């Protein structure tokens, strides 16, 4: 009935640590059935004290009802992540679930992706926003076909950090030789995929016992042969994707909408002293910076489908009454330009001279996420940045065998397939290669009939352009 105060924890969170400047790190988990992923997630949440007393009580009651007798004081940690009634009834996980926890170094958003049937859909969804993905392997089983599929998807999506957690190390008696063998297998798969050797993604392997907590939050004394960090330490110290990418990329800003109050100014802003005359003709372009950074005075190009790029200068970067000198991804701001162009939603503002010509021919990898298969000749919608256009599927050019990484002949794509396709767009778009642009190289394929999302799309270079070796499968 009362709120219990753990002042030590409060102090740790608020005073000793610079919480106000702590950054956000997004990661996802992926695994096969029964490799202990739910237990690992439960363990991370439990040991980082993200599980609160009433949740723990509820789980303890259910554990007791089911006669569970594990090491964590008789608590089945997997229950902490069970969400929906159907999942509890069937003992499975249906959908990606999001969890939140914080240490004194970082705040974490965890996308917990179930590993069975719809693994591609779930892994693609979780990995699309993740700075890192933790892939689980059962130490008794080693690298499975499912593991190869997971790693393959992560390589395609250019996830910055892939961490392979070799779980249930307690069940192989903390054997170094078992771990080293699995580690070597993982490295081999990684090399075949180009994971970790392409300068974009890196790969780490950590031995853990989710059930007992070895190397999850604290380094374990039971694996003296492992000198690396515990899983949580890895997650706390890896650079986030935007730290790695920001210096490589040029400014990109898809325009969401035009802010043009025309006298309809916010009453609270006016009451707070806003000069009504000065803002009568205010006009700014609102959006979120997807890549790079921008400064007042920078030369930028406005890209409008069907028109030549128009070059102008940034004269203001506004955010809710504050004038900024500079802004960078992923800030949401409003940008004012020197020339009064007709700029609208769907246009992109980019650093001048850094974007190639817009094109209506789209070559892409598609991760097919719908039970409704893709067929050549289908009419679909493509959502790219802030623009949605109609598109015709001209050809399906094969699908990837995720276990062997070979491209097989195919003229249609089914649920969980990843394939190559060529689309013709009704209007040209400023498409960029996903390999170098995780936001402006990504798009959705949408069913025009019911509006459902059919596929996650990754833009490839046109055949004939200089093509990256790893993509020319």
């Amino acid at each position: 009935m009362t709120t219990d105060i753990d002042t030590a924890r409060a102090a740790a969170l608020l005073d000793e640590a610079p919480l106000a400047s702590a950054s956000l790190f997004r990661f996802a988990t992926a695994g096969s059935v029964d490799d202990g992923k739910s237990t690992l997630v439960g363990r991370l949440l439990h040991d980082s004290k993200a599980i609160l007393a009433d949740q723990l009580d509820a789980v303890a009651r259910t554990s007791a009802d089911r006669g569970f007798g594990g090491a964590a004081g008789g608590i089945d940690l997997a229950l902490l992540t069970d969400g929906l009634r159907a999942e509890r009834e069937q003992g499975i996980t249906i959908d990606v679930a999001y969890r939140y926890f914080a240490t004194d170094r970082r705040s974490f958003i965890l996308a917990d992706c179930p590993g069975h049937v719809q693994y591609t859909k779930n892994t693609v969804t979780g990995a699309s926003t993740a700075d890192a993905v933790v892939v689980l392997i059962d130490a008794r089983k080693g690298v499975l076909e499912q593991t190869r599929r997971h790693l393959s998807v992560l390589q395609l999506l250019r996830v910055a950090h892939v961490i392979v957690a070799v779980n249930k190390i307690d069940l192989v008696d903390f054997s170094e030789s078992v771990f080293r063998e699995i580690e070597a297998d993982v490295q081999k798969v990684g090399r075949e995929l180009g994971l970790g050797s392409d300068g974009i993604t890196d790969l780490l392997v950590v031995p853990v016992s989710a059930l007992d907590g070895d190397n999850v939050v604290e380094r374990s004394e039971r694996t003296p042969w492992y000198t690396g960090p515990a899983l949580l330490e890895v997650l706390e110290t890896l650079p986030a994707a935007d730290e790695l990418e920001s210096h490589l990329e040029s400014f990109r800003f898809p325009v969401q909408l035009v802010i043009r109050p025309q006298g309809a100014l916010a009453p609270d802003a006016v009451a707070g002293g806003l000069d009504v005359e000065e803002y009568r003709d205010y006009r700014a372009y609102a959006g979120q910076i997807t890549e790079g950074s921008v400064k007042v005075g920078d030369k930028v190009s406005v890209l409008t489908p069907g028109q030549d790029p128009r070059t102008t200068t940034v004269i203001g970067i506004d955010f809710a009454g504050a004038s900024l000198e500079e802004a960078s991804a992923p800030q949401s701001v409003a940008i004012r330009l020197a020339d009064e162009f007709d700029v609208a939603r769907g246009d992109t503002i980019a650093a001048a001279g850094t974007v190639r010509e817009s094109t209506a021919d789209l070559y892409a990898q598609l991760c097919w996420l719908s039970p409704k298969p893709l067929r050549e000749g289908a009419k679909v919608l493509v959502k790219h940045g802030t623009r949605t256009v109609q598109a015709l599927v001209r050809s399906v050019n094969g699908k990837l065998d995720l276990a062997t990484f070979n491209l097989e002949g195919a003229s249609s794509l089914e649920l969980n397939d990843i394939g190559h396709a060529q689309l013709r767009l009704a209007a040209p778009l400023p498409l960029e290669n996903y390999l170098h642009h995780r936001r402006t190289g990504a798009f959705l394929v949408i069913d025009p009939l019911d509006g459902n999302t059919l596929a996650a799309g990754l833009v490839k270079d046109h055949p004939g352009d200089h093509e990256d070796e790893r993509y020319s499968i």
Partner: protein
Amino acid sequence: MSTFLTEEPTLVTDAAASTRLSSLDTLESEAIHIIREVVAEFEKPALLFSGGKDSVVMLHLATKAFWPGKVPFPVLHVDTGHNFPEVIDFRDRTVDRLGLKLVVGSVQEFIDRGELAERADGTRNPLQTVPLLDAIQSNKFDAVFGGGRRDEDKARAKERILSLRDEFGQWDPRNQRPELWNLYNGRHTVGQHVRAFPISNWTELDVWRYIERENIELPGLYYAHDREVFARDGMWRAVGEVSQPLPHEEVITKTVRYRTVGDMSCTGAVESAAATVRDVVIEVAASTITERGATRADDRISEAAMEDRKKDGYF
């Protein structure tokens, strides 16, 4: 990062860390992006506004998203008829200050017309669904912003940021669209609408730290005050017109505050001396009980209480 299988992860350098946005700035930026997407892509959005802290934060984010323009959508409140009077007063002042249009769906009117029946336990929270859907339909709202957060509940942990609802307002958790990158798909057919949850990724602590940082005003009952209360269902319940103690329930005066502000008939207070926003931030950081478990009787009805109400079209 070019070496294969590094033994130690690359450490965050101080220089790199200092140039990154703080987690609050990142969350704010994400929420504003979502609010702007919904306004750009939908015909007629509205914001659910109860005067509760999450909806107050949502409205604050909306003012920042469209500055110096007005917030370009109305606010919608489902009034159970059992709300705290000071919260209704706060709602009206806020709407007035921002020059917004307020649409009210009234549970009481539905009861008076015989279209809803009072529940045996007196709780009116589950009764909000019908007036909510009625208001959405009669005003032709195609997108409704809510302040729901994924850390609140197991079912919410699985809900999308843009969540499609059918003609009956129902959520189908097994048939949700995958949400990829920052590309939100809000397409819907006639009769369907979308619930948008821009602060899905915020925790209760994030919300309070943001309220502190942005100096956002809240109804006074979020802060410690003396109140006549009685114990029921393991919570302190306020004495009020619609919340009367039973003969065996002793009324005492305690220093309390509310962690959520809902219907008086089911929202409990916690004993607390946290009189300022700073005190509350520390209390929330240190609390060992999640907010819903501590103060909402309606979520205790069954383990799947929230899931069931959501499927029926609840917030």
